[in-house]
């Protein structure tokens, strides 16, 4: 693995994990502050255990079941779809066609829902707080696991990817303890744009390489210049996204917001 790829791996994993941990922290904080910390932290711990099991199974399956080029195609394809979803939202937000993500607003909505929900006890825990914390941490954490495994496996360095994600988690937890509130000052929309670009770049690079599985022999395709092509692919996606940010408002026509679009934002 070249130094450039290693740096890209660390940066992409750290930033992507950081954003996901910030979102999980907001949910756990909302539950902890409004309904008590015991059940919120129990939900968080249960989600962490479930994630560890998920990581072990998924990591083993990825590492042992698929040949290299097919692995690149499958993982690259998933990374590409995932990255383009982030990039699409980032472009829509930057061009003013979608509301910016606001952690304080999310925190307020979660806290309001928590205050209105009834109190049902199970296993000595406030079940609402436990379930919401569990789901929040598990779903955001699953995205971190996915990014760590895909980046790590394709770059043949899962420990570095895992360390970058762990560092991001540590920073977010410490910041949460210091601030004692949602991390609203984190430039989340900008970070999501950066993550979208990185996931899309690596996804493009690896999925195209993996298409070699369709050739006789099944060897991965090679980009001209090998890994040196990665910054070129990144620049291409960056240039396209800037162009779309500028042109998106002119493409849009005024129509009533549908229920699904309202839910999305």
């Amino acid at each position, binding site marked *: 693995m070249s130094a450039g790829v290693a740096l890209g791996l660390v940066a992409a994993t750290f930033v992507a994990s950081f954003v996901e941990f910030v979102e999980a922290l907001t949910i756990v904080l909302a539950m902890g502050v409004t309904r008590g910390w015991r059940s919120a932290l129990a939900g968080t711990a249960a989600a962490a255990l479930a994630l560890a099991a998920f990581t072990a199974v998924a990591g083993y399956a990825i590492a042992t079941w698929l040949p290299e080029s097919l692995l690149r*195609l499958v993982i690259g*394809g*998933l990374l*590409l*779809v*995932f990255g*383009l*979803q982030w*990039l*699409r*939202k980032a*472009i*829509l937000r930057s061009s003013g*066609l*979608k509301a910016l993500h606001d952690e304080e607003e999310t925190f307020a909505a979660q806290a309001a829902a928590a205050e209105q929900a009834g109190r049902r006890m199970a296993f000595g825990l406030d079940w609402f707080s436990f379930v919401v914390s569990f789901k929040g941490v598990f*779903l955001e954490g*699953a*995205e971190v696991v*996915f990014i760590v495994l895909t980046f790590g496996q394709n770059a043949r360095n899962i420990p570095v990817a895992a360390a970058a994600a762990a560092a991001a988690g540590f920073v977010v937890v410490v910041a949460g303890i210091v601030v004692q509130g949602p991390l609203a000052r984190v430039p989340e929309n900008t970070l999501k744009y950066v993550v979208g670009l990185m996931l899309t770049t690596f996804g*493009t690079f690896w*999925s*195209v*390489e993996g*298409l*070699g*599985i*369709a*050739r006789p022999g099944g060897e991965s*395709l*090679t*980009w*001209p210049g090998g890994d040196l*092509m990665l910054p070129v*692919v990144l620049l*291409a*996606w960056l240039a*396209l996204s800037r162009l*779309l940010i500028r042109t*998106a408002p002119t*493409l*849009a*026509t*005024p*129509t009533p917001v549908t229920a*699904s*679009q309202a839910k*999305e934002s």
Partner: protein
Amino acid sequence: MIAVRFVRAFLRFWYDFVIGDDWKIATSVAVVLVTGALLAHNTHLPDGATAVLLGLALLAAFVVEFAIDTRHRR
């Protein structure tokens, strides 16, 4: 009953993960990759040319998907 709920939740999780808010992204990527697989299988283009061509196809597919998506926003 619990098994059915688990399977439904599992499928829902992967649907949200892969398809997300916009099914057109997953579809456009799948179309380009399937076309790329056919290209790699049936032609003898040099690796570099195939890779660049497919990279450009992915950019173009995203532009088309985004243009369709944006038409009814405001």
